[in-house]
């Protein structure tokens, strides 16, 4: 039986769609499995072959807090990532604003130089940071991690805000200035409303990066300031069967960021590629 061109194409689309679904399901499987395991009992979680059908239980989620003081770590993650993001925005937005609208000879160089600081591998400065933190009593303190996260995310935030500001036509701001608006009014009434989507995704990217950061948090914290990344890492030394609980903790720790990521996926591309892909 011969198919018409239209039918052929339709078949092609359906086949490609099915393949895309298959690939997506395979890639998503580890996350799905983690969530599924979090609703099993420890015995089911260790069963061979893995059990697909079981009676879901909330037991793990209930015992997590008793066992590992989950909310202590979650609170640290929240405080550290939100504070560093807020401070970072306060420093980055004026810089991006001025570079986008008051360009000087040095602007391009400054931007490239900022980007280049991101290239410094953290291990290259691990020793001095560790020693400085020891001397200033910043080891295992939230302040310490906030400082580090603000600094490592600052270049990305400046870059992202810059690319969004760059898209605002200068004429609009000039028109406002001619109408007698001062700089603050200009920023508050015109610039921020026009770029709020972009700035929101800048905030989200910074939150995501700080929340998931695991080099400095593992090296500089023990308990007091340890965020969720460190709590999860502490599950790497096993003591008995605990995989259902590990899955439950992991699910809780990843859920908010996963949702942030889904919301802002389109805008994140720009921040992740330093504006090179839009």
């Amino acid at each position: 039986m011969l198919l018409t061109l239209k039918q052929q194409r339709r078949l092609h689309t359906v086949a490609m769609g099915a393949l895309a679904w298959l690939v997506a399901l395979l890639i998503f499987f580890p996350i799905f499995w983690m969530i599924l395991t979090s609703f099993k009992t420890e015995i089911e979680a260790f069963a061979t072959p893995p059990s697909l059908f079981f009676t879901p239980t909330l037991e793990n989620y209930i015992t997590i807090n008793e066992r590992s003081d989950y909310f202590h770590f979650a609170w640290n993650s929240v405080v550290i990532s939100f504070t560093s993001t807020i401070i970072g925005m306060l420093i980055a937005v004026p810089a991006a604003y001025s570079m986008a609208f008051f360009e000087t000879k040095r602007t391009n160089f400054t931007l490239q130089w900022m980007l280049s600081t991101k290239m410094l591998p953290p291990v290259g400065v691990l020793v001095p940071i560790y020693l400085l933190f020891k001397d200033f009593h910043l080891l295992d303190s939230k302040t310490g991690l906030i400082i580090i996260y603000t600094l490592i995310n600052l270049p990305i935030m400046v870059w992202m805000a810059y690319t969004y500001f760059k898209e605002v036509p200068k004429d609009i701001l000039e028109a406002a200035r001619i109408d007698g608006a001062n700089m603050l009014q200009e920023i508050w009434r015109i610039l921020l409303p026009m770029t709020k989507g972009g700035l929101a995704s800048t905030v989200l990217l910074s939150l995501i990066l700080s929340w998931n950061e695991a080099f400095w948090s593992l090296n500089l914290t023990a308990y007091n300031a340890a965020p969720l990344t460190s709590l999860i890492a502490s599950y790497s030394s096993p003591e008995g069967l605990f995989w259902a609980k590990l899955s439950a903790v992991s699910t809780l720790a990843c859920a908010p960021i996963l949702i942030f990521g889904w919301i802002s996926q389109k805008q994140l591309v720009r921040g992740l590629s330093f504006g090179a892909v839009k």
Partner: protein
Amino acid sequence: MDTLASIDKAKESDSTGVSNAAKKNALISFFMVSPSVILLLVWMIIPLGMTIYFSMMNYNLLSPEDTWFVGWENFEYFITDDGFASGVTNTLILVGSVLLITVVFGILISVLVNIPFWGQGIVRVMLISPFFIMPTVNALVWKNLLLHPVSGVFAAISVFFGYEPIDWFSDYPLTAIVIIVSWQWLPFAVLLLMTAMQSLDQEQQEAARLDGASSLDVFRHLTLPHLSRAIAVVVMIETIFLLSIFAEIFTTTGGGPGYETTNLAYLIYSQALLQYDVGMASAGGLIAVILANIAAFFLVRIVGKNLTDNT
């Protein structure tokens, strides 16, 4: 002092009309940009300077009183240490294989999901999700739930087909790390390439196809060139991050067995915080900085070029 002088100047020129606006702008930009610049400068220069200084000292935290200048000795020891050769090899294998896997599959997937089909939005969300999973979760979920030789999903699949399950972390530890890291970074490649694909000229493709070009021809001569810059960006940015992979190794193998999964980042960490050898760790840190800078040099050029193009 310069700052004060320029403020005075700006005040003086307040009444001089045209040049006044330019000067005011320069002043505003100076005050708005400098906090970022100063912070980043401090963040770079002080620790880096200390690293350079320590790298030339014999300095161990266990015996800090025995600290003296040794010149290049730390570099010599670090480079001739058993761990160094494996560290460099493993770093290269890790970066190379993850790049290859993520770029090749990233291209294929982004082409696959570009044509509209049912549930495209959900498929995209699923594809990029692993990128938002924190590295320590990623590592432990793979180690305990998927790759575990007794109860892991991979083992169950092997048994189902009648094969002996593979004990990934004792038999192929580096491969296991490569799998874990690739899973995390594939979405990054997919996300960037998918976005780049959206600006591909569909009509041109249609035209080429009507002229009798095969799908492969279209892919090679239209799609791939269009993606080339995005691919370059993916390669460069991934390289920077992959050079200092740490948490995935820390939580799964601890660099072992032996030095089999020790990369440069982990080697330096173990010198510094497990053996307290500040001098050696600093020398290693500098070597890592130099390697990363070679990669960074090219990235900054590509991205920087793009910055001036698009306004």
